[in-house]
C-alpha cells in the first residue's frame, strides 16, 4: 500500500489587530500590518502531522497568495511537512470563495494522488468557513467539518472523525479521498523542528505554480471567477458609552454596581 498522501491548505493573513480602514478612501490600510499563518490552519497541519507521526505518510502544503507567502510555507516544512506548493499569479488576485476553491481544486487535480485534504475551520480575516465545503464540491469529495479528532483506516479506505455540535457530538465516517476541516484549538500546534530548519529554509524548493501551470480557466479565477463584489467598506460603527469609572474598595464598588444593576 502506498503511503497516505495528505494535503493541508494554508492561508497567510494579516494580523487582525493591525488592520485599519482609511476613513477618507475607505480602503484597507494593510501597510505595516504583519502577517501570520491563519491560526486555524496550524491546527489542520498539526492534525496531519500527528497522523504522519503515528502511521506515516506524506504531507503537501498548498497556499494561494503573493510570493512572500513562500517563507510561511517553509515554516510548515520545518514543522514536518514534506512538500509545499504556492499558487501565485496576479490573475488569482481578488478571488472570493468560488474562485479560491476552484484554484485550490486545480492544484489538487495536478498533484493527483492526495487522499485527505485538511483545512482550518475558517480564516481569521474572512471567517466564512466556506472554503472546505466549496473545495469538497469542486473535487466531488465527501466532507466533514469541524473535526476535533481524526483516524484514518487505510485498509478500509475510510476516515473517521469526531465533531462537536450543539453541546453534543457525532462520529462520522467517509470514504477516501475526502475533505475535512479541523476545529480551531483541536490541538496544540508544534514548534518548528530545529533539525529540519536547514532543509526547510535553504535546501528544499517550494513549487510555484501559476494559472497556466494549473490549466486554470480564466473565467474561474481571480475577479472574473468571483460572483461577489465589494461595493463599500467602512470602519465598524460603535455606540457612545458613558465611560464612568467607579472608585472605592471592593465592597463600595459592589454596592454601586448593585444600584446600577437594580436601576435597570
Amino acid at each position, binding site marked *: 500500500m502506498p503511503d497516505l498522501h495528505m494535503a493541508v491548505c494554508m492561508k497567510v493573513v494579516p494580523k487582525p489587530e493591525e488592520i485599519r480602514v482609511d476613513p477618507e478612501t475607505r480602503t*484597507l490600510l494593510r501597510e505595516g500590518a504583519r502577517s501570520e499563518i491563519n491560526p486555524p490552519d496550524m491546527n489542520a497541519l498539526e492534525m496531519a502531522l500527528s497522523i504522519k507521526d503515528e502511521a506515516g505518510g506524506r504531507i503537501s502544503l498548498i497556499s494561494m497568495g503573493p510570493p512572500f507567502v513562500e517563507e510561511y510555507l517553509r515554516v510548515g516544512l520545518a514543522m514536518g511537512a514534506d512538500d509545499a506548493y504556492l499558487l501565485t499569479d496576479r490573475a488569482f488576485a481578488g478571488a472570493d470563495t468560488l474562485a479560491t476553491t476552484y484554484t485550490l481544486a486545480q492544484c489538487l487535480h495536478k498533484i493527483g494522488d492526495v487522499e485527505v485534504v485538511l483545512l482550518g475551520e475558517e480564516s481569521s480575516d474572512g471567517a466564512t468557513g466556506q472554503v472546505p465545503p*466549496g473545495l469538497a464540491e469542486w473535487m466531488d469529495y465527501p466532507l466533514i467539518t469541524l473535526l476535533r479528532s481524526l483516524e484514518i483506516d487505510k485498509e478500509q479506505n475510510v476516515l473517521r472523525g469526531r465533531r462537536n455540535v450543539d453541546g453534543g457530538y457525532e462520529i*462520522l465516517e467517509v470514504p477516501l479521498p475526502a475533505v475535512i476541516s479541523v476545529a480551531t484549538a483541536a490541538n496544540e500546534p508544534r514548534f518548528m523542528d530545529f533539525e529540519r530548519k536547514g532543509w526547510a529554509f535553504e535546501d528544499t524548493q517550494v513549487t510555484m505554480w501559476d494559472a497556466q501551470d494549473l490549466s486554470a480557466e480564466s*473565467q474561474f479565477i481571480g475577479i472574473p471567477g468571483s460572483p*461577489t463584489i465589494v461595493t463599500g467598506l467602512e470602519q465598524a460603527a460603535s455606540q457612545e458609552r458613558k465611560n464612568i469609572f467607579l472608585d472605592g474598595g471592593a465592597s463600595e464598588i459592589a454596592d454601586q454596581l448593585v444600584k446600577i444593576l437594580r436601576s435597570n
Partner: protein
Amino acid sequence: MVASLFDPSEENKAIWVLLESAGVELTDVSFELLAKGRELADEVDWPLAGVLIGDRLEHLNSQVLSHQADEVLLLEHPLLEAFTVDAYTQALYAAIMERIPSVILFGATPNSRDIAGRLAVRLRTGLNADCIDLRMDKDRGVLISDVTGFGGGVVALLEMPDHRPQLATVRPGVFHSLEASAPRSDKVRRAKVELDQSVIRTRIIEQVKGEGVSIGQAPVLVCGGRGISGNFEMLTELAELLGGDVGATRPPVDEGYIERERQVGQTGVICHPEIAINCGISGAFHFVVGIQDAEIIISINSDPNAPIFEFSDYCVVGDVEQILPALIQSLKEERVVTHA
C-alpha cells in the same frame, strides 16, 4: 466571467430561508431568519418561503406560518431523516433548480454552512457569509449584505448583481425574531425529492445530542476573558443571581475552560443582553462586536488602559477575584433583605 446556472432574467422573485429544527421546535436562528426574510420580502414585495428539510416535518408548518412566511416548502424523504451534507445539498439543489428563487438565507450553523458552501459551488454563485445586516435594492432586486472582516473592525458591503440565487449566511443572534402572530396564509408545498442511498457518502457511527447552549438571548451576560484564569464558577454564580448566562472570549474557550457555544463575538455568538458584565477582558474588537448592542456595559479589569473601558458605561479598575465575590455577597444580602 463565471456564469451561474441560471441568471437574473430567469429568476423567480422569491426569498427562501432554510430552517432547522431541534426536536419539535424550530431553532432560534430559524426564527431570526424568518423575521429578517419577512423584512426583505416586504421591501421588494416578494413572497417569503420557509424551507424545511427532513422527514415528516408537518408539525413545524404552523411555526413557520405564524412567523410570517407566505408559504412552507417541505423537502421530505426517508433519507433526509438524519442530516448528511450530501443528501441535504442534493435535495435543496433539486428544489432550487425547479423553482429558481432569487435569494436564499441560511443560518451560519455547522450544518447549514456546509450545505451553503457546497451549493454555492454547484450553482456557480456567490455566498455572502456571516452577514451582520441585509437589505434589498428594490430597483435591481439585488441583495446587499454587510459583513465584518479583520476581527470585526471593518464592515464591507457585498453584492452579486449577475448571479442567482443570491446566497447568504447569518450567525445566530444577529437578527431579532418576531413573536408568533396570525398567519398570512396556510400554504404548504412539497418539493419533489428524489434521492438514492448512493449519494450519501457519510456514515453516522455515533451521534450524541447535547443540551444546546444558547446565550444569544440572555438578558444579562457575564463574560470572562483571559484575566479570570479559568475561574468560571464565580461568573456562573453571579449570572445565576442576575438571571443571566455566562459567555467567554476566545482564549478561555481555546484553553478548554468553557464550551465553545459560549464564545461571544465575531467568531462566536452575537448577543443582545440588556446588561453585559465583562470580567478580565481586554476588549479586542472581535469580542466587542458580540456585546455592543447591550444597553449597559460594565467592565472589570486590572489594567486601567484596557481597551474594553472605551466600550463600557461603567468601568472598574480592579481585581476580578476581589470585586466579584463582593458583588455576589452584596446581591445575596440584598436578596435576604428584600425577602425578609
